[in-house]
């Protein structure tokens, strides 16, 4: 069994109200020096068998069609080390 992670983030130009709220809260809690926060989401996919280049392409296709909305989001696919 192999695990593949898909991280989905709002594109940099899209407003992220949740990240903004977290960013605003940090200094109130005494955490200084954070200049920006963006909130994203992470999918952990468990695959049966080996991770092949073909399987990874499938995962990218999943990410592009369902897991992310390319209009507002970017994604990144990584295999568990």
């Amino acid at each position: 069994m192999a695990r593949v992670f898909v991280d989905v983030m709002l594109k940099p130009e899209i407003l992220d109200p949740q990240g903004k709220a977290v960013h605003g809260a940090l200094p109130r809690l005494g955490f200084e020096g954070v200049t920006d926060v963006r909130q994203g989401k992470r999918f952990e996919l468990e695959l049966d068998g080996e991770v092949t280049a073909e399987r990874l392409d499938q995962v990218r296709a999943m990410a592009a069609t369902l897991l992310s909305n390319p209009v507002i989001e970017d994604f990144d696919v990584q295999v568990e080390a």
Partner: protein
Amino acid sequence: MRVGIVTFPGSLDDIDAARAVRIAGDVPVPLWHGDHDLRGVDAVVLPGGFSYGDYLRCGAIARFAPVMTEVVAAASGGMPVLGICNGFQVLCEAHLLPGALIRNDHRRFVCRDQRLRVESATTAWTSAYQAGQEIVVPLKNGEGGFVADTDTLDRLEGEGRVVVRYVGGNPNGSLRDIAGITNGAGNVVGLMPHPEHAVESLCGPGTDGLGFFTSALQALAA
């Protein structure tokens, strides 16, 4: 005229949309998300709600429901399709309309009577209005912020495809106060506010929303 109302798991305003269609003088036809045909309807409404819980992204899973294949095909063929709130989100996810809807800038769900300006009265769903006319219909959403890149926004504006715009305060951070848009052909319209909640004065802020549903009738009769 027969107007199909699609029910996805988690659709909520389907009965309201059906009532609005009835009050406008049409026949509402329930369509189930798993259906593969549109039962001979002349137009389709994708109602508000939280399809599939909106857990991935609003509308993201509904867009892959079997019935949506038929809706996309029919829309491409010119059938009038109206997406309200969650339905608007589904239309964007299905790429029938450009842009996307993101979380409100203040991060809260908002329910209020919203003033809108009808910017385009040439679509299948707004022909009963005058361009520039102001109307009040309920707005209720948590993820209603319309976003698109600048080129897309400029194109929408340039081609007169902004259908309704918020006036008297932007309730959710939508770019350029955009509340609803249409496709190039004017048969597909999506908007965040809920015209189906403004079709009888007893149970809403007035009857300003009825025009969306009578417009469809006019469009089909024409």
